[in-house]
């Protein structure tokens, strides 16, 4: 029996120590926001934070985690940068199919945690491990910059029409 700290909660899990964290999260604990994309750390869909550092949970043996704190997409919004990134993702309306976006948001949040105002090169370095087959990269870049600076530099989507106009 292993003890895991996930999103501030302690979980006792009866799994083999070589089982990747991804499948413990998804199939044992029941947190399905973290996604399976490749299984070989090539696509980043499974990115979570381990003590704030972005890691690919599909290749991370659960037995190696020890007491480190796991944060997933379900709780990253409780951190200041996680909340900023999620809001920027909404303002820029980044998502398409959305399947990779958990991992994108986890990578982007970790980037802002390290580098408050990332350059294009910083964004490339931090985000090139996350594949998006819908290719939402243009808006991901814009959303990261917006989350960092608060400055709007791309077509902003409206939540709905202003009150009273749909007649």
């Amino acid at each position: 029996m292993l003890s895991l700290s996930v999103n501030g909660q302690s979980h006792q899990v009866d799994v083999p120590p070589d089982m990747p964290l991804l499948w413990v999260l998804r199939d044992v604990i029941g947190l399905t926001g973290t996604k399976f994309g490749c299984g070989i750390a090539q696509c980043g869909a499974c990115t979570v934070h381990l003590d704030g550092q972005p890691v690919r949970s599909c290749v991370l043996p659960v037995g190696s985690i020890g007491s480190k704190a796991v944060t997933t997409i379900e709780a990253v919004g409780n951190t200041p940068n996680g909340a900023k990134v999620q809001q920027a993702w909404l303002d820029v309306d980044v998502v398409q199919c959305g399947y990779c976006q958990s991992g994108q948001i986890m990578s982007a949040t970790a980037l802002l945690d390290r580098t408050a105002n990332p350059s294009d090169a910083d964004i490339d370095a931090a985000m090139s491990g996350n594949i998006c087959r819908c290719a939402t990269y243009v808006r991901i870049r814009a959303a990261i910059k917006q989350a960092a600076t608060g400055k709007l530099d791309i077509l902003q989507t409206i939540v709905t029409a202003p009150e009273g106009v749909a007649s």
Partner: protein
Amino acid sequence: MSKETQALPTDEQIDVSRRRALQHTGLAIAFLWLGGSGIASASINARRQPGDAQAAAADGNPPFAPNAFIRIDTDGSIRLVMPAVEMGQAIYTGMSMMIAEELGVGLDQIKVEASPPSDQLYGIPALGGQITGGSTSTRATWPVLREAGAVARTMLVSAAATQWHVDPSTCTVDRGAVHHQASGRSASYGSLAEAAGKLPLPDKVQLKDPKDFKLIGKPLRRVDSADKVKGATQFGIDVRLPGMKIAAVKACPTLNGKFASVDDKPARAIAGVVDVIHTEDTVAVIGDHFWAAKRGLEALDVQWDLGQNAKLTTQQLRDALADSAQNGKSIVAKEVGKRPEGGTTVSSTYQLPMLAHATMEPLNTTVFVTSDKCEIWVGTQVPMRVVDVASKITGLSADKIVVHNQYLGGGFGRRLETDSVEQAVAIAKQVSYPVKVIWTREEDIRHDRVRPMYHDLLTAVVDADGKPLWFGDRTSGGTVLGRWAPGAMGKDGLDSDAVECLVETPYDIPNTKIEWIRHDMPPGLVVGWWRGVGPTHNLFSFESFIDELAHKAGKDPLEYRRSLLQKNPRSLKVLNTAAEKIGWGGQPLPARVGRGIALGEPFGSRVCAIVEAEVTPQGEVALRKAVVALDCGIAINISSIEAQVQGGLLFGLSAALFSEITLKNGAIEQSNFHDYRNLRMNQTPIVEVHRIENDEPPGGLGEVGTAIAAPALANAIFAATGVRLYKLPVDRTLLVQNGDAMQHVVSSGTGKGRDVA
């Protein structure tokens, strides 16, 4: 409704406008397999259909359900049922906007639901069934979904006016409520639902004048964004059921090979493994979790019967296909005039590779089969086909098959197939518990239903100015349509998809002959729809060839295209817009930097892409910038239009730069993202999208960017290097500046130092 000044359209008028829209938008080309009969028989209707009462009853039995799309509950909930599936293309948002515009509600006031399987209630006009594909969803539902919203609004207004004893024409609607300003009364839709539900359906309804649109044409946030940024959206792979087990599968790696035997003991020895079973061609290990199942599968030494493809290679396929293109008997898709005797002849051969879809969400299906029911949870573009195959495999009648459609983590055409569902049902019927079958990425790529390879022979006879007097194309490849919808093939056996964007081009070319040579792939090499379908294939060959003709004529590729577009103002406008926005002909570009133009009219839209690329001395290609000009007619959501064109273009550029599926010993050689590469953030250029505003009927969007990408890139590479690419993906060895270049560090220098592809 005082603003609604438009004349009352009758049902007949609406149908007429629908017909006209379909003709205008060229839907009759690739995906219309109902022939020339006009309106499809199984298709959505703005009013209640037989079967709708049952569907509404199963959907919470709301008091007000005037058609298959709108459910208003007494508590005020407004639920919209989506005839198309959401796979990233923002169709849930677009369809909600069309309904909500006429219904008089905001997108923050509605919830969306996936539709249950029903061709009758949710069939897409033009496709004749409940199918999401071919960039048809907006084009084909635009009149009907607006009318559906108007029907509901009319009934809610009638209910309020009756209660208030006022003339309905003195009432207005606004954000889910009816108002009577003179008396200051208001009633929410929820409070009117019971009364409205008892009213007869109106024969005639008034659609809003487009100038009064409040939602349509605005950049609205997607209705699915909020959950997707929190990881809260349930995709098929996220389904969890009580007692559910999880299966990892391996099908015979050799295409069309079969299962022979296996000793299952090594798998059963692994903790967490529950069952080892097989189907005709697949071994499945079922476990308490995916890791146990996958480890169990890896422990097995499966014996396969490799079958007739055991020695098959890509080169064999290529050679046979080339022979067909050269010598095969063709079907003439179009012939106008005769090939001139004199003139200068230009001929080129273009080849396109097989491609995998590689949706981010690997294929998966969850199935629970009991003696009298088969329940399926899956993200599919073809829910009725899922019912059909499950019925065949289980022997249960169609009414015993329950399909819960889920959000799709990408489709790109892959989820127009049911092979993974068939496999999962065949597995699930052997066990007593619900089972979720998940394909590894390796399985997903090795058993994709690939975009077919193509071999195209293009010829032009040009006049003294270099303009084409005659254009001929002999294109050959496997037929997707012929397998997927054989009834849609032409009477002469023509696959209309195979020649799309060739039989109609933007240009004024007086004489033409377009031929298709059917070349079936070996059994087991099943070819499938891939984003952009026929246009993605033909626009690469054709627009590369037009660029060649311009070069041979000594003309600027922009000027050359302009000279052929004098009778086509819409396409000329997108061409000119793209050229102006990128500054064509302005400052000279640095060495080995070039811009390439591609123009096309795919899916009822007009699009021009100009790609600016740099080619390093070592032959690496860096995308610097892309500008797209688009005429898609009436815009629904201008934010998602931009997103679709950006993403679609990059999807096409990704394939052109990196992607090819090859075979060795009858098996697909690629297996995961390390050897089936995709565009990443560091390789992504700026992509500008400029939209032409007009009031033409809506055009398709989901595939437009993809279809126009590869030729723009190839033409840019030609402009940068003088090397014409006749084959995809880009072969970097052809682009090396000279032998010395390879002595230097690869990718050492690009303009921005970050975007080496």
